[in-house]
């Protein structure tokens, strides 16, 4: 329950429902029975945070422990931040309204690089020292996790530790160790962090590793400072997804979340191996849930939520081996309860009429596909194994089904990209428009709308393209302009990402600890909400980099050496560096790699185990 002071300022802020709490499904516990209080922070607004499945899972899993109370924390919007400064209100946790600083552990989920400045501003609002080294025994232990924790180095100075990989077991173990050491009277910050690093899988404590550099700024070595902590921190996974915790009684936000529907996680990992895609690599090995368990979970969440839509979540839903039985068993009860299904990650090569008829998107007039590149050559380079034929087939199915709008995702700046590849994007869009007019089943009298949305390639750690240089801003802008000139059809709408944001993202994604100084400066100057166009300021970023002695080009636009020690080499995501090198070489040969189900390409992730996976086992 928020206190009176917070409540009193809610009449003067936008969307006060973001802050008031008290949602159905929120977990309230008796503080007297609690041994550890965990503040789970999402470094963006309430509406975005409440759409995050990872946060919901970990919230639930921690609260399964009777003596641990996990609460949520979100980043207040700028108007609320102003009120907080005016009225001396520190950042609070959503359930109890208690100041975050009073908690035992503060966890941040790091989903995207542009949220880093919000993490820092939230620490400031909590009145917790920014630098881990400055924290006292009174401050919470600050832990980070999520996709960006795979290269935690740019944030290393601000976190006491990171949880690498899937946190369900790992965070509970971590918090239990905290309770145990407190109970046994042998807790101190340093002792706890050391023991956690030494005994819990997936816990990385940056202060326990020494990073040394060559004169040119590249890393010479990352070395553990003690013998009993691992040289490389291997990520955690949930081996058996059927047995993994899943929140069957979700919190139902009062105000509209970005994803306000049942999010059913179908499987983790991806069999595809697109060479630019970090998610497709770091979540390996593929582990499916069974259709039976999914159907039961979906029914349970429906009964406990009243949502009218079920979204089947995965990286590529058509690759789920039990998709047919799953949709069949769901439809047995969803139809008569007026619940619709949506499949947000469809591949063009699997889009059939039958599938379309089963899903909710039929009700909308638009479908989205991601060919990623404009020519077959470049699609082979990135291992996106779809053809223009697949796309046109999928578009035809969509048009037959009464759709008029198709949205296509592409990327500019991929390795080896030429003018021809860029022109290919415009051609593909044009061909889709053409296909519409050729379709005998099209909606008579309505014209099609093909939207192409073009992102800028950002080289990401733990991908075959992790060493590649990002195109310079000038090159990206030129390419965006060139593509605009190629689009002559008025039925084609063209949007592209801001190359300046993509560049900062690249710097933060591949950065080393040297970036900590720049981020500290950014925090000092009050950066925040950098993922929001209205607050992102490229020149200010350049200015903090300059003052911190960081050359952004060194991290974003430099071809890194294949033998170079990379900042994230201290993390082991399961997939081997040798595999990434092989895949990189194949990319430059224009050779594709079959998906995991066709043929194992020996990425190494099977060493992590896993149930209902397609990996060959026993290779440990």
């Amino acid at each position: 329950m928020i206190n009176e002071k917070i409540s009193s300022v809610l009449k003067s802020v936008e969307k006060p429902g973001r802050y008031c709490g008290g949602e159905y499904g929120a977990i309230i516990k008796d503080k007297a029975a609690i041994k550890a209080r965990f503040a789970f922070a999402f470094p963006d607004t309430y509406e975005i945070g409440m759409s995050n499945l990872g946060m919901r899972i970990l919230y639930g899993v921690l609260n399964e422990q009777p003596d641990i109370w996990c609460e949520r924390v979100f980043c207040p919007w700028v108007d609320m931040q102003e009120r907080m400064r005016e009225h001396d209100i520190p950042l609070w946790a959503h359930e109890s309204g208690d100041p975050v600083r009073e908690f035992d552990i503060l966890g941040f989920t790091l989903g995207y690089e542009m949220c880093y400045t919000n993490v820092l501003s939230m620490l400031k609002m909590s009145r917790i020292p920014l630098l881990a080294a400055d924290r006292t025994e009174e401050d919470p232990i600050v832990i980070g996790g999520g996709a960006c924790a795979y290269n935690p180095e740019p944030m290393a100075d601000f976190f006491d530790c990171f949880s690498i990989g899937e946190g369900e077991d790992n965070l509970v173990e971590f918090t239990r160790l905290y309770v145990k050491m407190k109970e046994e009277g042998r807790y101190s910050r340093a002792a706890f962090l050391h023991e956690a690093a030494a005994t819990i899988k997936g816990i990385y404590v940056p202060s326990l590793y020494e990073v040394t550099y060559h004169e040119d700024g590249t890393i010479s070595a990352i070395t553990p400072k003690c013998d009993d902590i691992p040289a490389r921190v291997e990520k955690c996974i949930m081996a058996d997804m059927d047995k993994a915790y899943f929140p069957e009684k979700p919190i139902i936000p009062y105000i509209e979340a970005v994803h306000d529907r049942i999010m059913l996680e179908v499987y983790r990992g991806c069999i595809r191996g697109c060479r630019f895609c970090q998610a497709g690599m770091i979540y390996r090995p593929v582990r499916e849930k069974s259709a039976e368990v999914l159907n039961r979970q979906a029914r349970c969440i429906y009964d406990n939520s009243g949502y009218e839509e079920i979204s089947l979540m995965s990286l590529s839903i058509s690759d789920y081996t039990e998709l047919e039985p799953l949709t069949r068993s769901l439809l047995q009860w969803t139809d008569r309860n007026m619940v619709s299904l949506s499949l947000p990650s469809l591949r063009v090569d699997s889009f059939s009429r039958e599938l379309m008829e089963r899903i909710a998107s039929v009700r909308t007039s638009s479908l989205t596909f991601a060919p990623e590149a404009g020519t077959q050559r470049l699609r082979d380079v990135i291992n996106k194994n779809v053809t223009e034929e697949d796309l046109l087939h999928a578009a035809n199915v969509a048009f037959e089904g009464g759709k008029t709008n198709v949205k296509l995702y592409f990327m500019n700046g991929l390795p080896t990209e030429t003018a021809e590849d860029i022109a290919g994007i415009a051609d593909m869009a044009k061909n889709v428009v053409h296909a519409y007019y050729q379709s005998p089943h099209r909606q008579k009298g309505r014209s099609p709308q093909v939207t192409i949305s073009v992102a800028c390639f950002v080289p990401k750690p733990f991908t075959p393209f992790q060493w590649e240089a990002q195109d310079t801003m000038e090159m990206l802008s030129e390419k965006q302009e060139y593509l605009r000139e190629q689009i002559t059809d008025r039925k084609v709408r063209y949007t592209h990402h801001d190359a300046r944001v993509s560049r900062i993202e690249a710097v933060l994604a591949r950065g080393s600890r040297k970036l900590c100084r720049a981020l500290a400066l950014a925090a000092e100057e009050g950066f925040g909400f950098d993922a929001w166009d209205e607050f992102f300021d490229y020149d200010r970023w350049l200015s903090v980099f300059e003052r911190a002695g960081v050359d952004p080009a060194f991290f974003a636009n430099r071809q890194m050496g294949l033998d170079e020690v990379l900042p994230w080499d201290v993390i082991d995501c399961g997939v081997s560096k040798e595999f990434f090198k092989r895949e990189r070489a194949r990319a430059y040969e224009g050779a594709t790699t079959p998906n995991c189900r066709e043929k194992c390409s020996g990425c190494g992730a099977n060493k992590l185990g896993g149930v209902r996976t397609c990996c060959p086992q026993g290779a440990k």
Partner: protein
Amino acid sequence: MMKDNEKKFTLPMLESPRTLRVKFRKVGNLQYISHLDLQRTFSRVLVRAGLPLWYTKGFNPHIKMVFGMPLPVGAESECELLDIRIEREMSCDEVKARLAAELTEELGVLEVYPAERKFSEIAFAAYDYTIKTAGDPAENAARIKACLAGEALHIIKKGKAGEREVNILPLIREITVTAEGELIRMHAILAAGEGNYLSPEALVSALRAQTGILSGNPTEEHYRILRRAAYLADGVTEFR
């Protein structure tokens, strides 16, 4: 725990859909939830309560919900009304019990009964104001009273035709103002009919503009509005 949300399909069909009226409270933190969000919330509450809801028969079937009076964000209420429609037999008691299980303390069901009167018959609503001001409560109460005893109390209304001044005194049927210790309490009966509605918040704005109360630091000066009841045109008979 498995719910019996499939039970609804086994109940006998009604000859025609029945409209039930749900009286509920919306207090505490729930005062910050907007009308639109409340609608979305209830559409889910009704579904997970497993009620035999009637769906519209169009291209995009949806449940039918009609709310009584709008309640501004920042005001609490003990008398919110919502009409729902069911198509199979279920007693009001069971509907109430099922709703109670899906609601929270701050958004709680009070009563469920067959709807008889139309919402358009609502003419007035009673409100309790609890005001904490920075200055002397007795002095401020006197200033409020003086304001209300004047010839007119204006607010600026923004409409399609631009801004216009409206005298709200004719929309106040009854009002008492008393200073009680640290607080000022007001009981007011305000017009709440369609086309003749005074927002309880507008009264605060008018008093703020005229007397300067509640224009300081919100952590020191604050107020609470609670809607207690709705009345028919006679101003006495409670609307149900």
